[in-house]
């Protein structure tokens, strides 16, 4: 059972073309959805149990309901397509293969929150998706699926693509808004939350690509249909990006609560030949690493949390026994150090310091007390940073030392990474 919802049309040749999309049932939700009262639409999405697919997993219908009803300001919908989380590549495929599904969801979401304008903020490096989505928008305007009085329903929606300028932090929604406004893309102080004061200080809802891609299907088929997959708290399906030491890396849409080992062994074809599973980062680089013995769980929000990690953006990075966990931490912390916006002290300085220590452990071994120093630095960062970037930059270090402390100690004793030496790095 796979590809039930957002990937359900992926097999159709050239479904990114409007005619093909419409010919396969595309945009059919508009007549129904746009004639529903906005509140009704919000209630439907609430009832479906859909949770935000960007990483935080916040219930989508509830988020929509936070938009104030009594404001004279325009409302905005922003699609967060700044997919930058290491190990995550699902939104790219959703946009490349089936852009109209996203637009259809955005039209419905705009109607639900009273927005006449929506922006699709696409990661700047995604040149292909930027062109494909832009082309889809042109087609949709030409055929009356965008603009004034969409399909005679009286609903007006304008959509535009905004290419990002190359920073991971813009996946954080308030930093994205600053960037979209042409400001330096730093995260904003909350409250006020974007639903009350977001883009141009107006009520704004920011949703992930995959979240929005689900909407038309929920409108067409109803909340109960959607809830046939997953669990009570993790309804529907999830596109999981599987990468790393597997035979068939790629995106797989599966029902939530599919066993994680099924994802690895069946969908991704198992760990590469002759090797055995060592660890999995289940939800993108910002979540704790799970050792193999903790991977016998269902892939849903609550099960992964119970195992000590998070579903996050569903970027699953699979590692076999050849993987050096100090190297993993060094690599990931290097990423966060590079992407820290620099606004708050602990993230700006902590990521730099952690990297320097990990780099020394990896290359020349460092000192034994560096390991506890690393943990103390993570403690001084944990929950103290301005935004989640800093708070999550410590995950690979904390879980790495928790489960593989002996590897860190061996690095000290051996004067660096043996594996690296063997591989001639």
């Amino acid at each position, binding site marked *: 059972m796979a590809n039930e919802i957002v990937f359900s049309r992926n097999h159709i040749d050239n479904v990114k073309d409007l005619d093909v999309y419409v010919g396969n049932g595309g945009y059919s939700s508009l007549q129904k959805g746009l004639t529903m009262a906005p509140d009704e639409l919000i209630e439907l999405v609430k009832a479906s149990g859909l949770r935000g697919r960007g990483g935080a997993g916040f219930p989508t219908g509830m988020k929509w309901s936070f938009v104030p009803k009594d404001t004279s300001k325009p409302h905005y919908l922003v699609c967060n397509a700044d997919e930058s989380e290491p190990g995550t590549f699902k939104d790219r495929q959703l946009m490349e293969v089936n852009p109209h599904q996203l637009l259809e969801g955005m039209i419905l979401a705009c109607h639900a929150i009273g927005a006449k304008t929506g922006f699709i903020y696409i990661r700047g490096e995604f040149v292909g998706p930027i062109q494909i989505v832009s082309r889809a928008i042109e087609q949709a305007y030409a055929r009356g699926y965008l603009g004034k009085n969409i399909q005679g329903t009286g609903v007006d929606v304008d959509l535009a693509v905004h290419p990002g300028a190359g920073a991971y932090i813009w996946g954080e929604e308030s930093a994205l808004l600053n960037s979209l406004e042409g400001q330096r893309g730093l995260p904003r102080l909350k409250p006020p939350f974007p639903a009350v004061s977001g883009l141009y200080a107006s009520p704004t809802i920011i949703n992930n690509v995959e979240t929005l891609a689900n909407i038309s299907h929920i409108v067409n088929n109803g909340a109960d249909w959607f809830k046939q997959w997953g669990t009570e708290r993790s309804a529907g399906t999830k596109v999981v990006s599987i990468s790393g030491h597997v035979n068939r890396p790629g995106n797989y849409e599966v029902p939530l609560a599919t066993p994680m080992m099924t994802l690895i062994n069946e969908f991704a074809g198992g760990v590469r030949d002759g090797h055995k599973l060592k660890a999995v980062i289940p939800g993108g680089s910002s979540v704790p690493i799970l050792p193999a013995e903790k991977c016998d769980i269902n892939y849903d929000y609550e099960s992964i949390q119970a195992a000590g990690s998070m579903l996050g953006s569903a970027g699953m990075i699979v590692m076999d026994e050849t993987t050096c966990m100090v190297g993993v931490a060094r690599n990931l912390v290097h990423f966060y150090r590079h992407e820290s916006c*620099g606004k708050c002290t602990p993230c700006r300085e902590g990521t*730099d310091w952690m990297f320097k220590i990990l780099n020394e452990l990896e290359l020349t071994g460092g000192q034994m007390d560096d390991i506890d120093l690393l943990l103390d630095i993570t403690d001084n960062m944990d929950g103290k940073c301005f935004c989640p970037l800093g708070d999550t930059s410590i995950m690979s270090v904390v879980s790495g030392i928790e489960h593989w402390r002996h590897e860190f100690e061996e690095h000290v004793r051996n004067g660096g990474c043996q594996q690296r030496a063997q591989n001639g790095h």
Partner: protein
Amino acid sequence: MSDLVTLTIDGQQIQTAPNTLLVEAAAQLGILVPVYCYHPKLAPIGACRMCLVEIEGMPKLTPSCTTPVKEGMVVHTQNARVEKARRGMLEFLLIHHPLDCPVCDKGGECPLQDYTYEFGPRKTRFRYPKRHWDKPLQIGKNILLDRERCIMCLRCVRFCEEISDHQQIGVFERGHSQCIGTVPGHSFDSQFSGNTIELCPVGALTGAPTRFFGRTWEIQHTPSICTGCAAGCNIRIDHRQQRDVVRLWSRENKHTDDGWLCDRGRFGYEFVNQDRLKDFKILQDGQLVDATTQQATVKAASILSKHANSGSLGVLASPILTNEELYAVEWLTRSVLQTSSIDHTASAVNPQAVQLHSVVREAGFRSGVLTDIDEAAQIVTIGVDLSNDQPITELRVKKALFQRKAQLVSLYPETIELGRYTEHNLIYEPGQEASVVASLAAAVRSGGGEGVVGQAARLLSSEAPKAVIVGWKLQGLSDFSALAKALGELASALGPDVPCITIYPNCNTRGALDLGITPGWLPGGVAATGSSESGMTGIQILEAARDGRLKALWVVGAEPLLEADPELVKAALANVEFIYQGWSLRDVPVDPDVVLANVTFAEQAGTFTNTDGRVQRIYPAVKPHGRSRPGWQIVADLGRALGKTWEATSDQEVFEQIRQAVPAYSQIKWSEVGTLGVQSGASAPPAMAGATG
């Protein structure tokens, strides 16, 4: 008040206003929560994370600089968890900090030092090379940047965004490479740049003119008043053991400066340290030679007495002298020397000796003060470019525009800095002031009209509270009476009780007017009658000296000489017996016959009256250079040499005499002037010299 919020901080209960930030509520209880990025005059950003506190029921520590109080909140600022976070944050801030405190101007008054001492780690655990930047960078005329010391609180950038809107510096790069820098193509030459030195909580921004001024613990502070313009900004003179002035610092007074200084004022103290007259001098055989105080006084007195009571003497007294000095000069000039040609300015700006603040009152405006700007929703500036004419007041107007969305109407011959913030720029040909003001008044009365004037009038015809600001340059109009009439029409069109603030040029112009250092008025704004009536204005005095109609000049302070055509000044001074009393000969183009060494404002006690009529005290910061003396003492000596004894042994006694002479000052209690000053009352001198006859 029932709408107070009650909460508990460190076991102490406090009631405070809603929306108070936790860091402020803690401060109200006397609890120190360390901060770097937080500043009460800037919007909070929560970036430095120094102020994290624990709120019961919240899983994470919370920044107290961005979190408002809530009813029933229980807050801990000093438990082990908070203290560890604080220590950790200081450690993060210090890992790349150069720790060059021994050569840092900030050392001794540095919150990074202080908090490290109080809360920080004692040893470093960071074993790697520190970040290095080229340093110091001269990013503007007055500002040096040391990016190694910077802790990224962004107070400087936020000041330039939120307060001055001179966005010449910004943040570049990101993460561990992030730094402050100048916007490409711009240097940091904002005239408010110096404020960032004070805002900077570390030694990252230091003053180029004040670099290596000394160690802060060897510096003493004396409250004083800036002499740069008529705003009367309160300052602190920093000096080394009363020897020389090393730095001027802000001293917040909401009536005048609101806590800021402009660079012209902040760095304009070199005249106190350089080219100073240390001795009295007399001209002998064409050479200026040092003389005893008595020799010089006797010689000056003999010149003065020769020309007393004859109409052949002119007196120019600088508008940056203290009230006490000006009062003494006025006494000697009118009462002893029976001379009526006395003025504080020789510019062409006030040829008719107008008292602009009285003109606007007679026009029907209320006598305004600078703080009226804080209440106004609509601000009208007429004939004044605050950027030049009173920079610190421009910041007050910007605060009204930015924070309260007040609206501005500007009447000026060109687009002014503040014109950027309004569509209502009424730009006119010089000389058209009266007709522009009159047409605006007419348009307001009719509720609108065509063009820019009509649009401005539509705005102003609403009920919103207003403030009008007029500048001294208007005094120079040849048809001044037409302007006065037009101002009257505007006042009646805008409605009752609209305050009008008068912007004067110098730090004691208003005092000079109040004390009769202007032809046609005696102290207290009493119109001069009889023989005093025919006194010449400053420019007339210089012309008469050049033409031989005056035989002697007594110039106290060189400022009036700088306002007139240099050729005229030279010709005038060369053609008369010339007594110069001042602190430097730098701006005196002709050797005087007698030189009397006067102290500057930094070396004496006294008072200045700012543009509003606010009387503020200065205190002696440094010792007089050589044998220089306060002007009123020199004048008292001259009086004695002329056979007239003037009883005053202290600046306070002189001020008591001023109170007797000037009704507007009569209610001022010396003891209440303190360091923040007292507003003088509304005296009512006639607006124009000719008005009484």
